[in-house]
């Protein structure tokens, strides 16, 4: 079995702050992978519909927010290992990223963000010319 935290982590609410709605907010688990051309952020946000995901880039902060409604199945909750709530996580992004070209896609509860690197920081192979 993996030693990772499977349980969704709830965001800490500063004690002086009250949330408007009562739903908890979770920090989605992410993988961040960097290759030569881009950074890829993969986030687990199960239960979210594509239309309720909000990805914003502002002042070098990339924020993902997603709403996840309570399920409407009938019956009484008799056993529970997870709670339902919204998701929120922010990433601070350096100038290395070409922010205009950030892409997002969503499939089966997984949000993937592609953050292409700016051309100036991409590794470049310099051709060696013979004289």
């Amino acid at each position, binding site marked *: *079995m*993996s030693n*990772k*935290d*499977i*349980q*969704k982590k709830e965001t*800490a*609410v*500063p*004690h002086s702050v009250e949330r408007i709605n009562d739903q908890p907010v979770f920090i989605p*688990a*992410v*993988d*961040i*992978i*960097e*290759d*030569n051309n881009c*950074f*890829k952020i*993969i986030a*687990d*946000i*199960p*239960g*979210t*519909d594509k239309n309720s995901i909000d990805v914003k880039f502002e002042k070098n902060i990339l924020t993902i927010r997603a709403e996840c409604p309570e*399920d409407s*199945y*009938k*019956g*009484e*909750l*008799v*056993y*529970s*290992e*997870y*709670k339902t709530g919204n998701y929120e996580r922010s990433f601070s992004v350096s100038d290395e990223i070409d922010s205009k070209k950030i892409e997002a896609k969503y*499939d*089966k*509860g*997984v949000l993937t963000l592609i953050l292409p690197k700016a051309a100036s920081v991409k590794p470049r192979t310099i051709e060696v010319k013979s004289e």
Partner: protein
Amino acid sequence: MLLPTITLPKPSLNILGDIHKLRNEMNRLFEGELPFVYRNEFPPINMKADEDSITVTAEVSGLNEQEIKSSVKGDILNISGKRMMEAIGENDVAHRNERFTGEFSRTIKLPAKVNADAVSATYKNGILTLTLPRAEEEKAKKIEIKVA
């Protein structure tokens, strides 16, 4: 003689926040808000029940329908599968690796026997939902009261 030394944990800076959290937890405990169980196993499962059926939901995002296996026998339900890791090239760097990957298998006991032939399963937005109708012999029967 050497005396054992006791090191006290350093007080956390966010002590008010911690107290607030503890109070919430205590409230939750005494009010019995949810039958919440902490289990660090993938995928996390919720279960709802009424007199006709049991609904099991699991947060198992990022799989294809064919990659999730589920079986039921009597009142024992099993959900298993494998979640593949994102392909990482030789020169790629993984800065965070928080998501669960690998094989998983969860076996849980249902609150009642179910009719295995009538189980239905759906998978949407990363949530697996199994609807398991209670077995006939488990359903509550109405007793008619006759006038003596």
